[in-house]
Every structure is written in C-alpha cells, then in structure tokens.
C-alpha cells in the first residue's frame, strides 16, 4: 500500500485467510462483534457462508418461475393467436385451437424463458456485469479466484473505524489485513 499524505477514503478493510473454515469463523466473529456491512469472498461456493453473513432473500427461484410462466404464456398465445385468429386454416377437420399439438413449442419456450430468467436474474441481483470494483485494484485480491479467502468489512458499516477494525481483523488470525481504497 502506498502511504498517502492525506488519508485515502476506504472502501473497507480486507482480511486474508487461507481456508474456508477460517473465513467462516471470521464471519461469525465479525457478526458477533456487531458488524453488518460484511462481504466474504471465496474461490468456490462455501456451504452456509451466506447464512453466516446474515442470509439473503432468495429471489432467483421466483424470477425463474416468472420467466418460465411468461415463456409458456407467450409460446401458447403465439400459436393460439396465429392458428385461430390471424390465420385460421382447417387442416383435416382438426380444431383450430388444437392444444395438444401446441404443447411441445409451449414447453420449449417456457424452459427457454425460465433459463434466461435464471441466468439474467442471477446476474442482475449480483450487480453484474461490473467490470470496475475497488477490490480489483488490489493485487492480492487476484488470489480470491484461486486459493485465498477474504473478509471485507466495508467502511459503510456504522462500527467501522480504520484503526480499531484493523485491530479486530488482526485478532481473527488473518494472514494479512489490507486497505481497500475507494
């Protein structure tokens, strides 16, 4: 870290750990100490880590369901409208709204809609794409996608204090505590 003449505005303080369990323990301890603006970064999905951070409302399944239902409605409406209203044509005396024959396309579009909704909903809720982020400025953070686990206490947290929080993170047994400039 460069030492600046005037204090840099911080995004937060980043503590580095070398195992998933150490990160999980650190998150529990930080929550106990009353911190709320916490972010935990890991190179793979860790069971229970998001609950430890306070949990999130699960919107992805709802969004996916919405996408699926919307897809099914659009798919069916498209066929129903074109076959009965816009261009009714008698094929061998079959009913214009021959719904069993309309189901394959309805199903495919429903799945397509649900998959799109799941992926785009996940990205949107995660605030991605976001190509610039304060954390990307840290060389050390590159290891968050390989073998390091990070806990970030954000400066937005009411209990955040550059000195005291650093001391707290050190007491958690972090390998290193890094300043994240905003």
């Amino acid at each position, binding site marked *: 870290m460069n030492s600046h003449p005037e204090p840099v505005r911080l995004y937060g303080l980043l503590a580095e750990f070398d*195992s*998933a*369990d*150490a990160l999980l323990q650190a998150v529990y301890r930080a929550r106990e100490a009353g911190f709320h603006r916490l*972010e*935990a*970064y*890991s*190179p*793979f*999905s*860790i069971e229970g*880590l*998001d609950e430890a*951070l306070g949990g*999130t409302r*699960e919107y*992805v*399944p709802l969004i*996916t369901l919405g996408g*699926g239902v919307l897809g099914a409605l659009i798919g069916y409406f*498209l*066929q129903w409208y*074109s*076959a009965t209203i*816009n*261009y009714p044509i008698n094929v061998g005396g*079959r009913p214009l709204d*021959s719904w069993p*024959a309309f189901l*394959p*396309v309805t*199903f*495919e*579009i429903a*799945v*397509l809609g*649900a*998959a799109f909704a*799941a*992926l785009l*909903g*996940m*990205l949107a*809720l*995660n605030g*991605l*794409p*976001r*190509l*610039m*982020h304060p*954390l*990307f400025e840290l060389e050390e953070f*590159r*290891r*968050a*996608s*390989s*073998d390091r686990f990070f806990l970030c206490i954000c400066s937005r947290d009411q209990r955040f204090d550059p000195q005291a929080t650093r001391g707290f993170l050190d007491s958690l047994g972090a390998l290193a505590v890094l300043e994240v400039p905003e």
Partner: protein
Amino acid sequence: MADSPTPVAELRAGDIPAGWSYRSLTEKITYIVFYRRSRLPWFTGLALCLLLSLMFCAAVGYLLFNGPGIWGIAIPVAWGYAIGNYVWWIGMAQGGTFISAVLLLVSQTWRRSINRSAEAMTLFAAVMAGLFPILHLGRPWFFYWLAPYPNKMELWPQWRSPLVWDFFAIAAYLLVSLMFWYAGLLPDLASMRDRARGRLTQVLFALAALGWRGEARHWKRHQTAYLLVAGMAAPLVVSVHSVVSLDYAIGNTPGFHSTIFPPYFVAGALFSGFAMVLTLLIPMRRFFHLEELITPAIIDNMAKVMFAVNWVLIYSYVAETFTNFYSGDPYERYMSLDRLTGLYAPVYWIQIFCNVIATQVLWWRWARRNLTVLFILSLVIQLGMWIERFIITVQPLHRDFLPSAWGAFSPTRWDWLTLFGSCAFFVLLLLLFVRLLPAISIHDLRGQLHEQYGSSAGKPGQQSGQRSAEQPT
C-alpha cells in the same frame, strides 16, 4: 504432483488424490491455456481439421449452388445422410447435458472433472446438428421461414407439424445449453482473468467474466440459478430427442410410425453421448496429463452408465421388432423382415454388432478400466449409432407401401464429404476449446477438495498427513 498415499487407480470416483491444493488445481488447469506450448499433435490435428473443415465449406457451397440433388437422395428415399447425421449429432449432444445436469441433480460428485468438457461437446455437437436440417431444406437461405415472425406472406409456421416443434426444440436446447455452460464457466473465467499475464488476454477474460468476484451471496445465487437451469435442462434433454423422434413417428411410413420412438431415441442419444464424452476424455486426459483429476474410477462410472443405457437401447431394438410382428400389420412385418434380410441388412448387422455385441465387453471391470479398450469401443459405438440412424431413416423409406414406388439409396461423394467435414469441424471446435478455455471446472474441483480435506485443503503438503490421521490403518 506429490506422492499420494492412495494410488490414483483405487480412488473413489470424483475424489482428488492427496497432494493437490486450491492453488495447484488452479495452476494445473489454467496452465493448459496460458503456458503450455502447443505440441506437434495438437498442431497436426488442428491443421488436418482446418483442411477438412474447408472441404466441408466447399461441400456446403456446392450444395448451395446445386441443391440437395448432389446427395444420393431421391424419391422414395427423400431423407438420407443429412437427416441421419442430424439425429446422430443431436443425440451425441444429449449425453453431455445428461452428465452435467442430471448427475448434478442426483449429487454425483464425479461429474465435476468432466462436466465442462461434456458441456462443450454438447454445444458443438448441437451446432453441427442444427446445420443439417437447414442444409437439407433445399433452399437453406429461407430457413428463417420456420420462425414465427410478422411477414409479408402473412403466413405462420404450421404448429401441428413436428418439424416446427423440432425447430423450437433445437433452438431452445442450443440456447439453454449455452447459458448453462456459461453460468458454470463464469467463476472460472474470473480465475483466468486473475491469472492472465498479457494485456489482451486480461481484457478478454475480464469482459467474459463480467466482473465476477466470488462474493458469498453471489455464489449463493449462482448455485441456485445453476441448479435451476440444470433442473430444466434435464427434462429438456428428454423433450428434445423425443421431438426429434416425432419427426419420424408422426409420419405413417412403416418403420417410422411407432410409439416406442421417443424413449428409444432418448436411450440411443444418451448412449452415443456418453460414448462421445469417452472418445473426448480419454485423449484429453492423456495429452494434458490430467490422469489425477479424470481418474479411472470416473471413467469406470461413465462406462457403467453407458452400459446401462445400452441395455435400454437393446430392449428398444427387441421391442420394436417384436411389436412390428405382433401388430399383424403386413407392411410393418415386411419392413422388419427387410431390415433383417434385405438390401441394407449387412449394414443393419454391423449396427447390431457395434451396439449390442461389442458393448458386452463392459461386463468386465478390466475393460471398463482399460482406456484403450474403452476408446476403441467408444468409436465403435459412434459408428454403430450412426448406422442406427442411417437404417432408421433410409431403410423404411426404400420399401414402403407400394412396390411400384420402391427405390434404393446410395450415398454420393458429397454425402461423405458433408459427413466427414462436419466431424472435422466438430473436432476443430473442440481442439480450440481445450486451448482457449479451462477444460475442467476449477471451482467445482476446489469445492471437491474442500469437501474431501476440510480446512487443510488449502495448504499443500499437509493433506497426506491429515488424511492418514483420519484413516489410522
């Protein structure tokens, strides 16, 4: 890597040998893309595939000028290689989705080191599959008429036609496979971004990774979305190949018009897909030295699933033939007899040899663990499954109801060029894939390491001690 207490050959499927760390996993897999010098076999393969792909382009170009008459198809056999190839490719694709989606849903952790390459295979095979019906159209440049869009002709697709269902099924399948693949790739693209050295590769991977940081809540949503898409991909696999089979089954030609077709086709698809993944994994494992990650136990499991599906397929062969005789319908009976003894009977018996007799070697464990045997068998299965689709398509058509309308089909050089050209293009895409993207899901393997070794997983050199302490023998 480091010496391992358990020999690789005796690991449980999906287990990573001791001595691996998060870092060494990341390095091993990203190394293939970033640092490994391309060796002669890869370049030779690439050059050969490029050459044959050019030939494919030439064959398609000639087709565009002259129409499908350059192929051997003529009434009554209006469906030839193009349709057979199409079913072959799309069937292969299904196996990849099955491995990544269904094995995820049933918590088979051994999918973790093979799902990425299986999904890539799916995607490329589906692309090849999508080409063939379009090429077969006669006027391929009007293929967009299959899509419902407001047009001056004021016409709509015929929604009651399986060919239109097929268009939607393939399009949806291709897009969902792509999204599923990309969702799984996203965290690994971030690993690539963070390990890239050159500016251009950094920027490209950074753009592709969308700024993935690995935040816990992001992971949670990512896993949920991934699981949900997997849950939808599983029925999609079944629906796509069922719809493909309806292209045949809704027609009234003896040999096409059969209710067994949807499950029969799905079984065949999974069978050929697993075989294709084996064809792909065995050389990849060897050339990129992934023996410790793609273990014999994984290959053994693959072979077992393939063999199980093989028996469903064999049952379908028997049931189809039995039903044709049992139906009492003279045309169905004649079609079946002709299949066993007629013009194409030699080809049919090759199919039976490849798909029924040769596969019985899988009863033995040594065969399922012998990579040479499996590799050859997987190629034999590819051949057998291609012949199956050829027989299903051509043989019923050449002897349908009226003897005055009977005919025969023989392929022209353009049929062969298109078939082999498409294979070369497929291999070309795979060769590029293994050198441009992480061919194994790194984040899944890190998760596996964590599940196996707990908190000691991150520290190289400590696990062997940890592991033997857990198992005091």
